[in-house]
């Protein structure tokens, strides 16, 4: 009994050990140290206490209410029993076992209020971005401000929602604003001082390679935003970052050409910021099918040959497999049925277009919808099942274009996409086999087709995902069989994570205004009240 108490008392102190780059390479384990958990973006946890056999016993453990939230898109990170969750211009540290707040940092002076997708951690610092593009470094134990660095100007069309991405000794950030005109970039800042180490624009400058894919008029404002965090291959020392749509989104007449590097994935050396290769999914996009979805890095056989592969389920409806060493296109297969803008992808990775699918002033039906066949909601990959789990939307839209003068930062997107009232969309959790590109199972969801929730995979053989109808759901990773669900009473726009404290596995997801955490049910022990 004494030794038990002694052990518990010792564990009450949160570790003083700073988070290292090596720790992040080993994540996820008990901790969840990056937006995706792991550098490879698989969102697959080795935790296995929750299994198909016991998932039916999952129960809510705690709820943290975010008083100021209108729409949480945060993905928590967890280190040493402390969870960090963000909202617009604020971050909270929570006791990961109880959900009790430890500290809050809030910047009411930020000029811009936007959603926020999460934090990053290195050393004793926790990082997040404010809506007006300051990268903020805080002491992870106290929330004290260590430094902050402005990295983009809101007067040039930028705002920030990205979960910062730590590689080695640096923090990499991106920008939003590509729907109203700006010039996307990613930048690396020193984790210790905030000094900018490099910046890579996702639209080439005049005279640079790729500039010929733009007309002069919009090259300074063509978008290609970078608001989703990246993935990283430590062996190749390359980060992979996906880019947003060209601007104006739905009218391409003023930006003739393929519009590099919009709707693409770029491979970048994190030491220098140099681009090693790029692959553009949707050249000259006019449907807002931006490329911002996870580039998931796995080693697998593709077409019978072992590959260091990059998986990506794109908004345009194709599931791509690339060679992540070279960027070579390997395969693309449709992962939705509602796909009519291209007959397929040719041997070089270029879409074979179906004529007459561009937006028009009076409206033109095309599939997938503007929300995409999938989007930035996180997929996951389980090496044991060999399956890739992706949230999928079957929907078509009517796309409208407008050739109005494209004035940057005036809320002009060149048109839009509208849902067809008689053809409501439907979400599925879909398991794909990266070896073949084929679908293995589907889990259909009910709901209004408005969610943005993603998935997490576990070695216990359970996939968790937020559905389109306010639930967190657990299914069997092999078969897609329902195991458990919980109604949170609010829509979900974020992806779940899983972690372990004191030998107990937890699953957390942010709903619209709250952070919910679940674990296996155990009878509660009576607690003697000691605070009087």
């Amino acid at each position: 009994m004494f030794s038990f108490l002694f052990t518990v008392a010792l564990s009450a102190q949160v570790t003083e050990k700073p988070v290292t780059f090596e720790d992040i390479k080993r994540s996820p384990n008990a901790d969840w140290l990056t937006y995706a958990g792991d550098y490879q973006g698989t969102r697959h946890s080795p935790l296995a206490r929750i299994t198909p056999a016991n998932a039916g016993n999952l129960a809510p453990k705690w709820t943290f209410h975010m008083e100021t939230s209108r729409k949480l898109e945060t993905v928590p990170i967890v280190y040493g029993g402390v969870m960090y969750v963000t909202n617009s211009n604020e971050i909270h540290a929570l006791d990961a076992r109880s959900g009790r707040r430890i500290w809050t940092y809030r910047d009411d002076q930020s000029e811009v209020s936007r959603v926020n997708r999460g934090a990053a951690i290195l050393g004793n610092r926790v990082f997040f971005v404010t809506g007006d593009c300051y990268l903020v470094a805080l002491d992870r134990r106290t929330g004290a401000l260590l430094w902050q660095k402005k990295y983009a100007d809101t007067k040039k069309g930028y705002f920030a929602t990205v979960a910062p991405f730590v590689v080695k000794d640096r923090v990499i950030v991106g920008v939003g604003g590509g729907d109203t005109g700006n010039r996307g970039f990613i930048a690396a800042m020193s984790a210790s001082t905030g000094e900018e180490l490099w910046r890579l624009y996702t639209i080439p400058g005049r005279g640079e390679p790729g500039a010929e894919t733009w007309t002069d008029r919009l090259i300074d404002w063509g978008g290609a935003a970078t608001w989703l965090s990246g993935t990283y291959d430590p062996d190749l020392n390359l980060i992979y970052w996906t880019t947003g749509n060209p601007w104006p989104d739905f009218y391409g007449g003023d930006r003739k050409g393929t519009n590099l590097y919009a709707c693409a994935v770029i491979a970048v050396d994190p030491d220098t910021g140099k681009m090693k290769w790029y692959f553009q999914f949707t050249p000259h996009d006019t449907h807002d099918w931006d490329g911002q979805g996870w580039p998931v890095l796995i080693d697998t056989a593709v077409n019978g040959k072992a590959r260091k592969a990059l998986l990506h389920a794109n908004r345009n409806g194709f599931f791509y497999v690339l060679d992540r060493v070279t960027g070579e296109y390997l395969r693309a297969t449709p992962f939705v049925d509602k796909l009519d803008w291209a007959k397929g992808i040719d041997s070089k990775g270029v879409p074979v277009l179906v004529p007459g699918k561009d937006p028009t002033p009076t409206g033109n039906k095309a599939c997938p919808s503007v929300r995409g066949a999938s989007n930035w909601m996180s997929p996951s990959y389980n090496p044991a099942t060999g399956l890739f789990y992706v949230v999928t939307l079957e929907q078509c839209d009517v796309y409208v274009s407008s050739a109005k003068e494209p004035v940057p930062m005036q809320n002009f997107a060149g048109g839009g996409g509208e849902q067809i009232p008689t053809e409501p969309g439907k979400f599925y959790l879909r398991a794909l086999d990266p070896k073949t590109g084929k679908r293995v199972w589907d889990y259909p969801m009910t709901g209004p087709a408005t969610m943005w929730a993603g998935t997490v995979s576990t070695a216990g053989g359970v996939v968790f995902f937020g559905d389109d109808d306010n639930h967190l759901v657990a299914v069997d990773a092999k078969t897609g069989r329902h195991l458990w669900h919980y109604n949170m009473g609010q829509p979900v726009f974020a992806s779940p994570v899983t972690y372990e404290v004191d030998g107990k596995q937890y699953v957390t997801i942010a709903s619209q205004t709250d952070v919910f955490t679940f674990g296996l049910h155990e009878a509660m022990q009576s607690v003697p009240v000691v605070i009087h």
Partner: protein
Amino acid sequence: MYRKVLPFLVAVLAAAQQPRSDEPGNPVAGDPGAIESGRKTYVGSCAGCHGATGEGGRGPNLRDGRLIRRSSDAQMFRTIQKGIAGTEMPGTNLPDTRIWELVAFVRGLGSPAAFVMHPGDAAKGAEVFAKNGCGACHSIGGQGGTLGPDLSTIGGLRSYEYLREAIVKPGDRVAAGFQKIVAKTKDGRVIEGVVKNYSNYEVQMVDRTGKLYLFRTPELADVKIAVETWMPQDYGKRIGRDEMTDLLAYLSRLSSRPVKLGGGR
């Protein structure tokens, strides 16, 4: 670096008042020079009833209450000019400009200190901060202790008067997360620090050296949480008047966004 100062300041002050569209706004709203002139007029003509810092007395509190937040600038102007019949609030013959200056000053009483011009030398205030050992408990930009609130952006968060009172009367208003705690574990350790959060079931605390502890209460033999801080109560006596002014000038300038003050209208 200081590009957005005045528009932002005006926006902050204007957000509180929401004037009717047919009413004139304050032509000197947010103007630091006008606010300083207003302060001088206030000290001579208003402080007797409303308190030296707007804290109230014979007249109402002008700093924290709804009275100010819910009044438009034009309403405040009329109140100052005409007085309030049936009360001790008199009217005045001051020229319009000086009344507008008063309105601007009173409006600033509840604004974060960074947005209002204050007297004192901020550089000397930094020396006062260092000399008095404030950094032992308070951090600024990552330097300092953890027993008191981080002050890195405090001027953008708190009003000048809040800061002054927090120094001279720290026990009056203990910042959340900084109450004094002494926790005794069942294995006999005694840990002193500040309590970040607590319930009957968990205690989250930081000890005097900055270590973070997350206790389940069954791990604790005893917990004492006091509605007081570790901050000495006598800084009001230890720090002279001019030094206090400089210290407040220094703290007032600590802001999460650049703020430029000074100059004419």
